[in-house]
């Protein structure tokens, strides 16, 4: 009976979200794909020009640079954020005094917006680098590690919470059994805890991977592409192409489409890979 009711009301419950999804995602996405094949000044006067935008896009050395720069950034942040996040989660599930306080403190950076964070860290970095007669925007290498530090600082707390939930869900009897069988704590971690928290790892690596690729506001606030657009991540490169270059709106749009495909493909690949590693409880 309840199931039947639920089915009857399904459209009513789903409709608001679906409409929001349609307006906020499907329509802009479809329009975006259409615009990527057009030449336009404002989105209302688009004239289709075939695939020219896509060929132009790969002629732009800055785009290729941004692509590699972003890929490197995503790889580094996925590894560091998950490593640190997991380590802190392990420490904070050991029942240390003040665990709750630490959890809160670690989570808090995540509540600050990216732009604010970018400007604050810019001050901090420049404050330190000034002692060496340098600034953060001196070279794109500094910008890179600056961004890595900010993203870590911001996202470690978030993945930590997910890992804590995962670790707490590992049945204590499994760990106990392993210990009785003489497993070292490293073996417990390797063979019991890790496989059991695999679903959390799936989610966290998905989140950090896509976040790494999509990072925009921190990049804008911290370096704004300086020096010479060489610390530009993909999202900022797309934004600058669309708004900053007269006549390149279509190319910017084409970049955005390619960008979504890359992020989507990577996310799917990563999900299938980590899903395989999950174990049934």
């Amino acid at each position, binding site marked *: 009976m309840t199931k039947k009711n639920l089915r009857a009301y399904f459209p009513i419950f789903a409709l*608001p*979200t679906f409409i*929001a*999804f349609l*307006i*906020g*995602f499907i*329509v802009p996405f*479809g*329009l975006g794909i*259409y615009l990527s094949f057009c*030449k336009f*000044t*404002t*989105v*209302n*006067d*688009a*004239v*289709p*020009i075939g695939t*020219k935008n896509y060929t132009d896009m790969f002629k732009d050395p800055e785009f290729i640079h941004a692509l590699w720069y972003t890929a490197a950034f995503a790889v580094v942040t996925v590894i560091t954020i998950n490593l640190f996040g997991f380590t802190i989660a392990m420490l904070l599930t050991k029942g240390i005094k003040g665990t709750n306080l630490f959890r809160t403190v670690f989570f808090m950076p995540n509540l600050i917006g990216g732009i604010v964070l970018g400007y604050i860290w*810019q001050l901090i970095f*420049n404050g330190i680098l*000034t002692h060496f*007669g*340098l*600034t*953060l*925007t*001196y*070279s794109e290498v500094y910008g890179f590690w600056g961004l890595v530090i900010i993203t870590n600082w911001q996202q470690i707390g978030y993945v930590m919470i*997910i890992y804590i*939930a*995962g670790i707490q*869900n590992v049945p204590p009897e499994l760990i106990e059994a392993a210990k009785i069988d003489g497993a070292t704590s490293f073996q417990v971690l390797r063979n019991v805890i890790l496989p*059991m928290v695999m*679903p*959390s790892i*799936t*989610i966290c690596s998905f989140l950090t991977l896509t976040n790494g690729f999509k990072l925009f506001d921190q990049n804008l606030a911290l370096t*704004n592409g*300086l*020096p*010479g*657009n*060489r610390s530009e991540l993909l999202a900022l490169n797309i934004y600058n192409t669309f*708004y*900053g*270059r*007269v*006549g390149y*709106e279509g190319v910017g749009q084409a970049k955005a489409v390619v960008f979504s495909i890359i992020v989507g493909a990577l996310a799917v690949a990563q999900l299938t890979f980590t899903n395989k590693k*999950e174990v*049934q*409880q």
Partner: protein
Amino acid sequence: MKDLKKGIALAMAASLSVCALAACGESGGNGGKTGGTTSATGGDTTATSAEGGKVYYLNFKPEQADQWKALAAAYSADKGVEVKVETAASGTYEEQRKSEMAKTDAPTLFQVNGPVELAAWGDYCYDLKDTSLYKNLKSDDFALIQNGEVKGVAYVIETYGIIYNKTLLNKYFETDGAKAKSVDEINTFAKFKEVVEDIQAKKDDLGINGAFTSAGMDSSSDWRFKTHLANLPIYYEYKADGVGSKAAIEGKYLDNYHNIWDLYINNATCDAKLLSSKTGDDANSEFALGEAVFYQNGTWAYQDILNAGELTDDDLGMLPIYIGAEGEENQGLCTGSENYWCVNAKASEADIKATIDFLEWVITSDEGRTAMATDMGFVTPFKTFDEDAKYQPTNKLVQAANEYIAAGKTAVSWNFPTIPSEKWKDGVGAALLDYAQGTGDWDAVKTAFVDGWKTEYDAAHAGDTAAADDGAAAEESTAEEEEAAAVAAN
């Protein structure tokens, strides 16, 4: 375990939909807000707005945002026509224009900065040939004319050069072994260089941090060098060849550009390695606080300088930017415009008429002219402002510019609107910064300047021919467009 994953997925889905809904709510809120302002200004106008015309000005200059609002309110109160003024925050005009122009209630009045932007926005510009706006221009040099149509009309003429602190410079002239005794002696690059380097050597005696303010390469300041300073080598090359634009620049005066850039970065308030993060505000406050003697900027910086420190009109003067070109003793300041009014051709007839009426009122009425000349401090290219001395600006830097013209010096024209693209400027700017920091050499600047020009010029022109082809393709595509529109409507 599965439950946990499901729970998190659910939470994520929920947060996603909340975000989506919040976004809708926000844009709805904005709509409500603009609706609010519109009806607020419209409140006292409902009686006469029966003909339906209204004005929406998307202003480029944040320095004058409040003055435009006040002027619009005065016009609304007087004529009963609704005038809305929105100003884009510094550096965001491109974005604002692009998104506002796509709306149903698009701006009826917007700005372009010259021929390069006109190429993109030409279709949106109403022909102003028959308006008194164009007829009152002192010369066609101040109009953007494309295929015989007047697409844009300049409304402010600006001048830049090297602003100097008169008090500090006079103090230097009195020191022992000063390389010059009066500012009139500085009329070549060689002399200027001697003076600058001597000031830098005596900076502690003079109580300053450097001869020049920091040549910041942050985006709030880099245009001073990659655009305004770059204008000089371009100007002299055009002049030598007797042309007004070029498909390929040779970089004949690049060595001069090199010299002046060296002078800027080696005699400044800060080490060249810090330039990448120095902003326009930094340079402005260094100058306003008397930490430096020279500051390359223009008449628009006048208010900012006065507001940031204790300098008064008597402390300010402006020198031409000498780069060591032949005959520069007679060179004046750099004068031109990159602010053109364009009326949105895609607006309704009534709105276009209302907009033109408003602009005509601005340049002919006492209120409008006073606001532009006194409150905003503009020098305008309109004849109507010559009718009375009170419509001449009080801006001290403008007066300095006029003195050079009165002394018979040749003003340097603004040639950067002929720069093929923003990309060119970015390339030159990045190379200049690398050179200054020591992470690159001057050859990279040459490459960006000469080869970059050709690449960007060719790209822009390839675009032109493609656009012509598109014209033919446009008709076939209407069916597709309708389809897309139908999809969007669904």
